[in-house]
């Protein structure tokens, strides 16, 4: 092709076409006039020689016009004005991925790394005439590569963005024409550094290696698991699997060698990504080093990606729950019984036995909660969850109503509202702040009453661990629960509401919201539209755990959502620990950071202080520590009040490389397009040299390339005339 065009295609892409004849403009006029004359002549000729039809005459005329047009273009002396790298004045950086994923097969007989080595050698050789070539390898970071033979394919991570940013920063004083990245795109970083790469203004050409489709592979791609859990609680892990073909597989989670949960699943052919959940008991206090594992029955090329580890901190942090109940009823009794002896929740309740008498349970001091709902923040905010039973709004003062609202919105506490004869609109709550907080537009009319129906988990509820119950002989544990016998209409759902449980009316089969929740301010509000869950205890066979489990899970999870005065977030990267704290006092106002310190204990047992500094907002404290060694780190935070908080984080891990066995084409294409480069494959990699030669970056020289003598023009004119001759012969009109 280049024979006919005289210059590489890349030259035309980057250049601008110009006509340089002094008569170019006039020539165009003359050509235009000639075309008009030709058309008129053809029409006139057509009237006189009617042996040919109009279509044939038009074809012949068009061919003649085209031949004249090409001739006219050549006479206009076209040139291509472009820029080219100035020879010897620029440099090109070649980054070769040296991470572990490059040791995966590129083809049957060589690895990705071997292919990268060959391609890099070829490119380096061809680019040498145009620019100075500097070669780097990268995995966790970039480093100069003296020789291609030093590539090992053993890097534990691929930080493409950071590596690019580093080499661009190092080369900012030289004339950089382009960067070539040879990689499978299996980036294990968060990608935050890519923005600075785009800002450097240097085209990045990406040469992608590796299969673009999963082949003979089954892997655990991700496990989403909360970092902390109360002791002896139900924990749900969402496991994401990727696979190349349908088969049976066993997914399980182990704590050391102890099996916690397992599930047999089918990997359907048409669904590459499979999500499933494992539910297990958190067990006793301590750190769980959990291994999630898939055992596939089919072919599996890489076994390194069949496991994924996660840390779970199981701790016994007491959560405080207060239950205000406005009438003695069975729901109160059995809810209390479900929570009796719970080693996480401290359960205090106030039961209005009559208009003037309150029966207090769970209190430890004679005057504790003697005045009902606390009216000062320091007392109310000590609770994590408040349950409002069948209690009239008029039983709280205006101050208590407002403080309850602040408890949720500002303190971040959780509020659970139960249905009842004195609850919601039946209790006059529709004109109180609670109406704003609820996840429904509260109906203004009383609506509590007998109604028989069954509870079922909604779609949203199926994704939530609040509603997980143990399966009863393989069947839906909700379907076999006794019917509920009362219901309170809730009104229309607000936009942020999530329905976790539904009430199926047995008479009409209508589906109504039963357990609804929504965030409010910093906290959470939930609403249960029945008061007859006690039948799940009394009407099930002896020993059935579902009633107790439901309530313990619901109350624990709601209480767990409530933040502590000190919020400590520790994130572990591949080689660092980031700590972020927000400190508040008992009234949840920002607290001073003086007297707060943190200590890090490394995997080898050595420890050091984690330097802290005040953040941008009152009560905010940040810390950062570089951690080159992978492993489990312990972070002890000492607070000003003498309490301390311990958290564990897992830094590094090294198996991230195996999570992405296919080429990340999207990342490589995005990187190339964002920087003005191109994405290449091994098949067309030879074009990179020409693309860089006419790159817009680096030190350029201007070129004006004549185009009038392209062999293409002669070929076109000959081709047109030959075609016309052939047509005339066929039609007998030579």
């Amino acid at each position: 092709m280049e024979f006919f065009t005289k210059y590489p295609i890349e030259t035309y892409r980057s250049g601008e076409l110009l006509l340089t004849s002094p008569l170019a403009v006039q020539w165009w006029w003359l050509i235009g006039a000639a075309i008009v004359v030709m058309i008129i002549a053809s029409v006139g000729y057509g009237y006189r020689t009617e042996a040919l039809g109009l279509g044939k005459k038009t074809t012949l005329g068009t061919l003649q016009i085209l031949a004249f047009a090409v001739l006219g273009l050549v006479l206009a002396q076209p040139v291509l004005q472009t820029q080219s790298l100035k020879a010897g004045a620029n440099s090109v950086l070649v980054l070769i991925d040296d991470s572990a994923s490059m040791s995966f097969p590129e083809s049957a007989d060589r690895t990705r790394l071997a292919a990268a080595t060959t391609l890099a050698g070829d490119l380096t050789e061809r680019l040498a005439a145009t620019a100075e070539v500097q070669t780097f390898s990268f995995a966790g970071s970039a480093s100069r590569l003296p020789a291609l033979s030093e590539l090992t394919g053993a890097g534990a991570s691929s930080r493409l963005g950071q590596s690019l940013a580093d080499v661009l920063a190092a080369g900012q004083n030289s004339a950089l024409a382009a960067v070539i990245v040879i990689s499978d795109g299996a980036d294990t970083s968060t990608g935050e550094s890519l923005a600075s790469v785009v800002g450097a203004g240097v085209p990045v050409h990406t040469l992608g290696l590796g299969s673009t489709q999963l082949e003979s592979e089954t892997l655990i791609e991700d496990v989403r698991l909360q970092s902390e859990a109360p002791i002896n609680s139900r924990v749900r892990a969402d496991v994401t699997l990727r696979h190349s073909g349908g088969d049976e597989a066993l997914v399980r989670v182990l704590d050391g060698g102890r099996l916690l949960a397992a599930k047999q699943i089918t990997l359907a052919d048409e669904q590459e990504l499979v999500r499933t959940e494992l539910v297990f008991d958190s067990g006793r206090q301590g750190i769980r080093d959990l291994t999630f594992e898939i055992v596939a029955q089919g072919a599996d090329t890489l076994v390194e990606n069949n496991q994924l580890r996660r840390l779970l901190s199981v701790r016994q942090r007491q959560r405080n729950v207060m239950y205000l109940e406005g009438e003695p009823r069975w729901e109160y009794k059995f809810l209390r019984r479900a929570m009796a002896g719970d080693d996480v929740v401290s359960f205090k309740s106030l039961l209005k036995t009559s208009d003037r008498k309150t029966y207090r349970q769970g209190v430890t001091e004679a005057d504790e909660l003697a005045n009902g709902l606390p009216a000062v923040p320091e007392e109310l905010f000590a609770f994590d969850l408040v349950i409002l039973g069948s209690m009239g709004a008029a039983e709280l003062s205006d101050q208590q109503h407002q403080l309850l609202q602040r408890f949720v919105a500002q303190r971040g506490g959780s509020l659970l509202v139960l249905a009842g004869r004195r609850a919601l609109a039946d209790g006059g709550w529709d004109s109180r702040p609670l109406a704003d907080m609820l996840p429904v537009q509260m109906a203004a009319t009383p609506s509590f009453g007998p109604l028989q129906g069954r509870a079922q988990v909604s779609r949203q509820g199926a994704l939530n661990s609040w509603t997980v119950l143990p399966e009863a002989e393989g069947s839906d544990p909700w379907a076999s629960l006794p019917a509920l016998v009362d219901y309170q209409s809730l009104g229309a759902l607000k936009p942020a509401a999530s329905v976790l449980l539904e009430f199926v009316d047995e008479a009409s089969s209508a589906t109504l919201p039963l357990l609804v929740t929504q965030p409010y301010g910093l906290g959470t509000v939930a609403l249960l539209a029945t008061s007859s869950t006690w039948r799940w205890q009394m009407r099930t066979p002896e020993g059935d755990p579902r009633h107790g489990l439901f309530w313990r899970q619901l109350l624990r999870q709601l209480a767990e959502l409530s933040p502590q005065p000190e919020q400590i977030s520790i994130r572990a990267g591949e080689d660092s620990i980031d700590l972020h704290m927000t400190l508040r006092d008992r009234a949840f106002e920002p607290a001073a950071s003086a007297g707060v310190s943190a200590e890090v204990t490394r995997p080898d047992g050595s420890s050091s202080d984690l330097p802290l500094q005040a953040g941008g907002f009152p009560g905010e404290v940040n810390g950062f520590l570089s951690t080159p060694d992978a492993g489990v780190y312990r972070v002890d935070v000492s607070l000003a009040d003498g309490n301390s908080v311990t958290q564990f984080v897992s830094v590094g891990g090294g198996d991230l490389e195996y999570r992405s066995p296919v080429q990340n084409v999207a990342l490589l294409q995005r990187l190339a397009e964002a920087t003005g480069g191109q994405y290449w494959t091994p098949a067309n990699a030879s074009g990179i040299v020409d693309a860089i030669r006419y790159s817009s970056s680096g030190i350029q020289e201007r070129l004006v390339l004549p185009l009038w003598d392209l062999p293409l023009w002669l070929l076109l004119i000959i081709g047109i005339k030959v075609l016309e001759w052939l047509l005339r012969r066929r039609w007998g009109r030579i």
Partner: protein
Amino acid sequence: MSLRSQKRLWSLIAAGTALLAASGSLAQNAFDSADFLGPPLTVKESALPPDLSAYNMARIRYDSVGGMGEAFYYFEGRVWARWETDFPQAEQNFAQRIGELTRIHAAPTPVVRRLTDPDLGDYPMLFMSDPGYLRFNESEAEALGSYLRNGGFLWVDDFWGDAEWLSFERLMNAALPGVRWQVLGVDHPIFHTVFDIDEMPQIPARSFAEPWGRTDEPPFAHRYPQGSLKQASLRAFIDDEGRLLAIGTHNTDIADGWEREAYGQWYFERFSTLSYRLAVNVMIYVMSH
């Protein structure tokens, strides 16, 4: 309403009449069955399904051993089975009063169930009266044990003396093998949930009720051997976790205090108030523990 002496007198008359009228082939054990005389005439259950969102008083219907004067008695113009003593007036009055004294929303009409009824769990508290001649079978004992272990509660009232207590204790031992009972003193929280009660009230049958003086019933009105009838007590069966499973108000007839509240002002003030105070405390305790 266990009007013991009156009951016994009428029972003797009725038994004599029955013996004269009966043929020689009529076996004595025919009188052992509560079904012999058919269903009691005065039992009025609600025709509608109970409103389970409310508190429903549930009276246990059971069988008793013996014949007239034992399993049955004649009183106020008709024959009563033991299980229906005080029923349904006591429950109806109690439902009314408990709504006034507390915030419990009680259904006005009581229900009657056997221990083996499949919907027994819909009534987390059961009431039995006058179980001195109680007779039960294995399935009833089994059902009661399962019910109590699941969270249900049983209140047994109106039995006097050692022999009558023994019949109930046998049922409990069959239902919950190994379970023991103990007397709850007035320092137990059940005596203080709403009203502070410093003495276990003794309510006699109406026939023995006086405006002043003794409150115990005479021994001849009860099953032999009676032992002491002087001291009323609240006896409780408690599980390993300290939860009350069942209570027996022994040597007292608390439900008679509800049933006979209109007997006279002195009766109401001397007996009904005491029986309501104790019942309210028991109800609040059961609905909160």
